[in-house]
C-alpha cells in the first residue's frame, strides 16, 4: 500500500465587509499575510481549521472559506498558482500587489 500523502494545509477566506483575502494565523486571528498562516500537517489539524472556518463563516466574519494546500520550504506560501495570486494580487498590476508577509517579502 502506498504511504499516505503528506498533509500541508492552511485556511483562507475573504473578509465579508470588503472581500479582502485573509489567512487564518497561528496567533488565532485572521491575517492579510499568508506567511502568518497557521499550517497544519495532520488530518486532525485539517479538521480543526475546517471547524474554525465554518465558525467564522457562521459568525459572518468571512466568506468563501477554503482549506488549501501550502508549502513551508522557508516562508509559508500556497501551493497552487491561483492561491498564490490570491495571496499577492494580480500579476499584471504589481504596483497594487501586497506582499506575502508583513516584512514586505
Amino acid at each position: 500500500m502506498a504511504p499516505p500523502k503528506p498533509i500541508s494545509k492552511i485556511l483562507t477566506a475573504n473578509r465579508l465587509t470588503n472581500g479582502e483575502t485573509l489567512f487564518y494565523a497561528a496567533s488565532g486571528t485572521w491575517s492579510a499575510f499568508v506567511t502568518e498562516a497557521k499550517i497544519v500537517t495532520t488530518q486532525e489539524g485539517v479538521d480543526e481549521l475546517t471547524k474554525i472556518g465554518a465558525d467564522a463563516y457562521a459568525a459572518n466574519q468571512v466568506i468563501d472559506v477554503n482549506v488549501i494546500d501550502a508549502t513551508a520550504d522557508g516562508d509559508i506560501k500556497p501551493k497552487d498558482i491561483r492561491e498564490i495570486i490570491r495571496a499577492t494580487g494580480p500579476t499584471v498590476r504589481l504596483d497594487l500587489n501586497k506582499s506575502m508577509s508583513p516584512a514586505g517579502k
Partner: protein
Amino acid sequence: MYLYDNFDQTITQQRIGEFRDQVQRRLKGELTEEQFRPLRLMNGLYLQLHAYMLRVAVPYGTLSVVQLHKLADIATKYDRGYAHFTTRQNIQYNWIKLEQMPDLLAELGSVEMHGNQTSGNCIRNVTADQFSGVAGDEIDDPRVASEVIRQWSTFHPEFAWLPRKFKIAVTGAAHDRAAIQFHDIGLQIVRNEASEVGYRVFVGGGMGRTPVIATEVRAFLPKDELLSYLEAILRVYNRYGRRDNMYKARIKILVRELGAEEFIRQVEEEWQASDRALVNLPPAEEDRVRKFFADPPYEKIAVPVAAFEDARKNDKAFARWVATNVHTHKVPGYGAVTISLKPPGGIPGDATDKQMHAVADLAEKYSFSEVRVTHVQNLVLPYVKLADLHAVWQALGKIGFADANIGLVSDIIACPGLDYCALANARSIPIAQQISERFADLDRQHDIGPLQIKISGCINACGHHHAGHIGILGVDKAGVEFYQITLGGAADENAAIGTLIGAGFSGDDILGAVEKVIDTYLELRQSGETFIDAYRRVGAAPFKEKLYGRR
C-alpha cells in the same frame, strides 16, 4: 441618448434603497451569505479572488459624458483608480468593498446607471453594434429596439428566474459587428421584399463549454411584433429549459435537444396563442423612444475636407490611424473614431480614471457628448468631424490611447483571467501583453492585416476564444497553466467556431506558437488575402505542420 422617465427613475431608486437595506442586514448578520448572495448578484456584485467585483450595465454600450465622468469618479473613490471594459459592453470594478456598495449604487443611480441585469439567470444587459446610428450600412438604428428590449426586460417578473442567463444582441446592418450569432437571441434588422423593416431572428447561439452558432428561427419578423415574439421564445425556454444541470441549461441546449424544427414550431405556436397586441409596443411608444436617438445637430460639411486631407498626406502616423481607427460615417464630413484600449503591453479594456475623464472631455468637445463601448473592449467617439480628427488623435496620444491597431493583431480581446477571476484556470492578460509587445511594430501589424486574437482564461469563454481567428484558451494541466490554440473562428455574419489545432502550449511557449501561426499565414497567403480567408482556403493542416511537425 435615452433619458430616464419617472418610471425608470423610480424603479432604479427603489432598487438602490432595497439593496442598501439588504447590505445593512447582511453586515448585521440578519441575512446569511446563502440568502444574500443571489441578492448581491442581482445588483452586479460578485466575489472574485481579491475583493468584490462590481459589473455596471452600459445598455447597448452607450454612455453620456456625464456617465463616463461618474464612472471615472467611482474608480477614484471606490476602487483603485481604474476599471475594465468588458466583452459585453459593460464596465467592471475589481476592488469593491461591500460596506461602500449602497453609496456607490446611489452615485451610479444619480446618472441613470446600475448593476442590474449584469449577473444572475435573467435577461442580461442588451448589446448592440457600436456604430449604431452612424454606420453607413445600417438599415435602421438598433438602439431603438435595444432600448425597447431594455425596458421590457428590466425586472420582467416572468423571466427573473430563467434556467440560466440570457443574452440578446442587435445589429442594424448586414455586416455584424455585435456577434449576434453567438447570443441566446440575435436580432438582425432587415428589409423584406416589400421593403418593410423587420428582424431576422436567431436563437441558441453561445460560447462557453458548448459553443454553438445560432439557428435562424425566422427570416423576417415584422418590426411591430418584436416583443411578443421575444416573449414567446423566452416562454418556451423558461418552460422547457433544463434546470437540473447548469451546463445544459442554456437555450442553445434546448434548441439542440428539441431540434430546430420542433423548437420553432413550439415558439410559433406559443406566439400565435399569445395576446400579441397586449405585449407588442404601441407605435406611438416606439416613436417616443426613437426620438431619443434622433441625429445630433450635424453641420453640413463639404467634402473633401482640406485640413483633414492635408493632415493625412503630411503625417503618415495619423494617416495610418485614420485607416484603422476611423469608421466611415453616414454623414459626409464626419467619422466614427474607435479609441484603442490596447497599447503594446497594456491590459485589454483597462482604463484609468484620468483616461476616462480625458475621453469624456474629448467626447464633449468633439462628439456631441457621447461615447460607445465595443464588445472588443475599445471605446468609440461616434460623431467626430473629419476636420477635428487630427486634434482628437493628438489628444488621445497624450493619454496613451492613440494606437493605430483596430482590427489588427494587437487589438486582442482578453478576459480578466486568473489575475482576477474566481472561475479562471489560467491567466489571459499576460498572454495578451506578450503578443501585443511582440507585434508592437505597426509596420508589421499593418503588413499582417486584419486578424482577431481572442483569449479566455477558462472554458466559460468570456474572452470569446471560440470566435477568434486565433483563439487561445487557458487550461489547468496538473496545476500548471497551459494554452490551447483554436483557428478559424469568426464573430461576424460569417460566424464560425474555431477548430482546436492540437496539444496545448506552456505559458513560455504560447507566444512562439502564435508567432508561428502568423508566420505560416504570411508564407502561404495570396495577394490581398486576410488571415481568415487564407485559413478558409487552406484549412488547418499547414498550421498544424508548422506547430507540431509532420505526424
